[in-house]
């Protein structure tokens, strides 16, 4: 989850998010270089004593400031397109989970092997234990096995929602009547938080998503427990 006053991205937990982070660093560095250069040119222009009222032209500098920006744009576009296509690849997931958005909670269905389905409501602030995160904790977490490719099928039962986990680099709209697919793989065990990202009514800010990645034997124990509870 984000820490207070955080400006940058959360640490990446999936390899895709790592790629996105590195691309963001790359693009931001280019943008900062251009901005600093422009600022420098502006200060030179303002403080110079060399002024000429005749119009100057130079073919050489025109070639330079056509070719260099074109090359810069190509250097940004190529990694960007690579990540774009990488994000759409789904490589043989081990598990498929359906995440359905409702007003105002998420429900998860694990129907690959057994019929496991449960709702995930936000924990009200007055019911939090010390150390839990306000507006982020849910009563039932979406538990997944760590280091396994997971496919998530996202849809909604009423209005638009959006299933988001920033540290996994996932944002996918939950559209009623439509099935959207995304996939992720967690590199580490842990608990990862996200919040609904499409305005859906009064409690849009109060339907968080919590993904918990655990080793496979713990995941199997959890599914057994959840099936018994239901």
């Amino acid at each position: 989850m984000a820490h207070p006053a955080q400006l940058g991205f959360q640490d990446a937990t999936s390899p895709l998010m790592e790629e996105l982070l590195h691309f963001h660093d790359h693009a931001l560095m280019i943008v900062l270089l251009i901005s600093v250069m422009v600022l420098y040119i502006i200060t030179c222009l303002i403080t110079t004593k060399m002024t000429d009222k005749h119009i100057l032209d130079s073919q050489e500098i025109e070639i330079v400031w056509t070719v260099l920006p074109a090359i810069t744009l190509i250097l940004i576009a190529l990694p960007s397109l690579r990540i774009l296509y990488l994000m759409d690849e789904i490589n043989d997931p081990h598990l498929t989970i359906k995440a359905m958005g409702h007003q105002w909670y998420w429900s998860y269905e694990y129907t690959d092997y057994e019929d496991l389905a449960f709702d995930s409501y936000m924990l009200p602030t007055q019911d939090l234990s010390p150390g839990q995160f306000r507006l982020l904790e849910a009563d039932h977490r979406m538990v997944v096995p760590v280091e396994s490719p997971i496919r998530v099928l996202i849809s909604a039962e009423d209005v638009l929602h959006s299933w988001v986990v920033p540290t996994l680099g996932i944002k996918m709209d939950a559209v009623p009547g439509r099935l959207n697919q995304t996939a992720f793989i967690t590199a580490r065990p842990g608990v990862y938080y996200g919040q609904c990202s499409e305005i859906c009514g009064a409690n849009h800010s109060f339907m968080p998503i919590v993904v918990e990645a655990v080793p496979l034997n713990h995941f199997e124990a959890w599914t057994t427990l959840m099936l018994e509870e239901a």
Partner: protein
Amino acid sequence: MPSMLQTVGKQLRNHPALIPLFIFIGGGATMSVLYLGRLALKNPDVSWDRKNNPEPWNKLEPTQQYKLFAINMDYSKLKKDRPDF
């Protein structure tokens, strides 16, 4: 048409800095048009012939690559795991 080309040719001779501009803009426009053409003709979401090929999106093989680039994906290894209908 030919006089327009002659005008442009004269301008290019006097201002050779315009040549890289033509190259990049022309290249970009060409790539966009080619990609749009590819999408129109080869995207399985598009159906041109309603009689002979009404729903091409139902005829996708698991090993078929319909996207332009495959970065990390070995399509030949994919299996079909859904039922026919």
